[in-house]
């Protein structure tokens, strides 16, 4: 059998087998953990590229991979089409970049636990990848749990309030997963199938859309993924969990977990169900868009009130979730295109920002935005990349943030939902304030010794200031710059990506 055809399964097997290897290595020789992780994620990324090429070349643009050759609906299949092939590739690329980046941060923040950390790191990658590739609703739940459980543990490895914030996250996350599972249960009762394509077919053939059980199942799934993606008002678990996690964890979790939940929402809305059902299930589907507007405002303005860089970024994640949910619920093709494109764009943006924040923390030992004073002189390369990511968040062309806004705003205008348009523009401007607040500090002020409120005096950090440029190591800078340049490239080549995404969007069948 051709190895290329095995690419989808290799993509997930690489980190999965890697997790075993790394956990063994953690017992024998901890130094091996880092190179092994990089190696296995790189293998996965390579397979991901192969998968994407395969999807591009396949007639119809859908590839199905049947586990053990079992035919669906009995067996589990991986199903890759124009919606998730790019997302799956993004997941492995993010994992690879964070793996490369993690060399110093893991050693310094979770010293002695490298084995555990990297094992969980790889398992999380497996879970997220599985979610983005599987074509089976129950199998998706399994991967959801794999990724959630490993992310709980990864977050709890942080210092200070990490354990408590993580506990909060566990409770909310478990409730979310249960909702999802309940919803899938309802669908199973009515259709007798767990395969997504199969469920969609049965719903269609038997006209089950009017069934109350199906409607309730849909709503349960929706609420489940909303909790998982921290959609307002179900967002309270996220900021603390992301802030107090070790910096490598936040770099991995922040770009992936919420984005992949949005993917699940879109998959369920448009692949299992159809627009007619989804936008007719409640009395007014535009209320969800209004909720998304509230999410943008809550995220942006809370971010404005935070003086911790990471906390600010965490709230921005919540605002960005609003962008994507809103786009998907605008009930038109342009909005959905924007939402899907923004999954990719925002994944990269969040990655770049968290990587930069981690690099700043590594050198300045503080997440307080005061620690960014004078950083253009101290860490010019980190700040340069940070500035590019900031411009993308604001939506300055030719970065990809501009083009996702382009489609989202167009979608809003097309739907006549002016609240969404104004919300997006306001949020862009708040982003401008947020980021220039930091860039100004970094550019105009003199660097000073970092401090953390409440940590002065004899608890003050043991910090030695170096003269002149004091840049983060190359293993941190390289992934950071890769992500930042990726933002520009994704913007410049957004035409190609959009073309690819619209294959899926066109198949959805909007009126």
């Amino acid at each position, binding site marked *: 059998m051709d190895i290329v055809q095995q690419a989808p399964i290799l993509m997930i097997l690489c980190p999965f087998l890697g997790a075993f290897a790394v956990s063994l290595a953690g017992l024998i020789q901890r130094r091996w953990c880092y190179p092994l992780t990089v190696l296995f994620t790189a293998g996965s990324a390579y397979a991901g590229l192969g998968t994407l090429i395969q999807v591009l070349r396949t007639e119809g643009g859908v590839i199905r991979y049947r586990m053990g050759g079992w035919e669906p609906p009995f067996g589990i299949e991986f199903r890759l089409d124009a919606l998730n092939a790019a997302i799956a590739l993004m997941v492995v690329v993010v994992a690879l970049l964070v793996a490369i980046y993690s060399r110093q941060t893991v050693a310094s923040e979770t010293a002695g636990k490298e084995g555990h950390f990297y094992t969980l790191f790889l398992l999380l990658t497996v879970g997220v990848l599985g979610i983005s590739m599987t074509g089976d609703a129950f199998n998706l739940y399994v991967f959801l749990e794999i990724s959630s459980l490993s992310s709980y543990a990864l977050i709890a490895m942080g210092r200070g309030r990490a354990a408590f914030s993580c506990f909060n996250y566990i409770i909310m996350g478990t409730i979310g997963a249960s909702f999802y599972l309940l919803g899938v249960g309802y669908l199973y009762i009515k259709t007798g199938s767990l395969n997504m394509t199969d469920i969609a077919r049965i719903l269609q053939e038997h006209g089950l859309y009017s069934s109350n059980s199906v409607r309730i199942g849909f709503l349960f799934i929706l609420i489940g993924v909303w909790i998982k993606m921290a959609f307002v008002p179900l967002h309270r678990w996220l900021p603390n969990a992301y802030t107090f996690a070790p910096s490598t964890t936040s770099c991995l979790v922040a770009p992936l977990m919420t984005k992949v939940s949005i993917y699940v929402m879109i998959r369920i809305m448009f692949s299992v169900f159809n627009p007619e059902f989804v936008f007719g299930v409640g009395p007014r589907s535009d209320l969800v868009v209004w909720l998304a507007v509230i999410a943008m405002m809550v995220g942006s303005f809370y971010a404005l009130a935070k003086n911790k860089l990471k906390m600010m970024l965490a709230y921005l994640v919540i605002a960005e979730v609003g962008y994507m949910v809103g786009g998907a619920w605008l009930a038109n093709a342009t909005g959905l295109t924007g939402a899907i494109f923004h999954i990719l764009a925002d994944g990269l943006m969040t990655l770049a920002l968290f990587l930069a924040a981690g690099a700043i923390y590594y050198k300045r030992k503080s997440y307080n935005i005061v620690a960014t004073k004078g950083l253009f002189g101290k860490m010019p390369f980190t700040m340069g990349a940070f500035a590019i990511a900031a411009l993308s968040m604001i939506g300055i*062309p030719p970065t990809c943030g501009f083009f996702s806004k382009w489609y989202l705003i*167009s979608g809003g205008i097309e739907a006549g939902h002016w609240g969404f348009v104004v919300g997006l523009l306001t949020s862009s401007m708040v982003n401008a304030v947020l980021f220039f607040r930091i860039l100004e500090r970094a550019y105009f002020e003199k660097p000073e010794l970092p401090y953390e409120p409440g940590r002065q005096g004899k608890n003050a950090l043991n910090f030695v200031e170096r003269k002149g440029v004091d840049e983060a190591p190359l293993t941190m800078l390289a992934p950071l710059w890769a992500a930042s340049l990726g933002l520009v490239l994704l913007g410049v080549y957004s035409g190609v990506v959009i073309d690819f995404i619209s294959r899926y969007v066109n198949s959805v069948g909007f009126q």
Partner: protein
Amino acid sequence: MRQRPRKGVLIAMDTLVMTSQLPLYAVLASALAPIPLILAGRNPNMREAVTFAAGFLKLWFVMKMLPPVLEGKVLEYTLFEPVAGLPVQFRVDGMSMLFALVASSLWILTSAYAIGYMRPLKEHAQTRFYVFFAFSLSATLGVAFAGNLLTLYVFYELLSMSTYPLVTHHQDAEARGGGRRYLTYLLATSVGLVLPAMLFCYLKSGDMTFAAGGFLAGKVTPTEALVLLLMFVFGFAKAGVMPFHGWLPGAMVAPTPVSALLHAVAVVKVGVFCILRVVTGVFGLDFLEQLDLGLVVSFIAGFTVICSSLIALSQDNLKRRLAFSTVGQLSYIILGASLLSDLAVKGSMAHIAMHAFGKITLFFCAGAIYVATKKKYISDMVGIGRRMPITMVCFLIGSMSVMGLPPTGGLISKLHLLLGAPDSGRWWLMLFYVVSTLLNGAYLLPIVFRAFFKTGKHFDAGTEVQEAPMFCLVPLTLTAIGSILLFFFPHLVFELASLMVEGS
């Protein structure tokens, strides 16, 4: 290319669109300059040589495009296509050419001037200064060459970003305030107004390419057209239409070469250029005339003209006075465009060039005075004509050009603007021009008069002649001579301007 007949007359000559990489090279000449600039950073002479090389290279590429453009051809180059059917594309026509010529030739003079300004003042971070200067010139040419709204917007934003480090060059509290104001005005308006307006246009018409008769005609309702027009006029805040002019006086904290080239020529002219493009290429003069939308803009611009001139009267800081004068002159151009008469639009376009030479001379003079005497305030400059006679004579020439007195180029564009008012059937709009010309005289001429004929506390009868360094003096003399030359040889400017108006 689609063509639309204007005023019932079919365009006789076929427009030839030819693909050419020259626009790309012209933009890249300064966009790639930062690499050698940074490498040569430790050796100032080498670094400035790189700037000059890039400047001449750029001008050469622009000049090479001149003959085909004068023949009525449009040079086209597609960079990439981010949205299906909507490329980021250069299309060089007469209007682009005019602006590009002005910007790239003045860049060379400004680079020379910058040497004379930055070195004696021992400014810090000079390499960074030249790097971002080169970037902003690329963005300026990008706007000039933009073939559609999307491209225009992309380079417009890049220009805001690349000029921020220049405005805030001194990195002190004042620069921080000025820079913050700069970005707040420019970003809030472009993201808040231009972006949605642009998207709305696109959704309504399915098109974004500038066309001779616009592409909106018949696609939007009159109310929508009015709202869109206002969103564009206010949204391109670089044009400084009141109440969005506040960033310009704030941006005067920048070193003078920046104020001279960017805030008298490149950045602000990009603003009016965008508005002219939108008026002619998006709406089309006929469509606006049909809806009678010109008058609204005329009033907004006329108000700005008078108001800013009055404010300029009260400013004692020379650069701030010039900044308010610029605000007024920019609205001249917009007022001209809003008259919707071919004559006035031609005059508007020409005024971009004429005012550029006049105003850059004035700024160069202000900087030269600062370098030689450290004086910023007009009240301290009484009698300075004895100390710096050449500078002040050039200042006089610049003032005359801004006012529109012979023998300077300003007269010719102003005549076109003035005559455009009766041409459009609203002769009383001439009043704005007449009153404002008087005000221009009132705030510029006393400076020269007092410089030569009065004695002040710093400069009395015994003051010896001591001009600014040659690198300051020569560029400002050249731009002053340029203003006079434009009076005698305005043909090229008007030829390019009419190319645009006739839409071929």
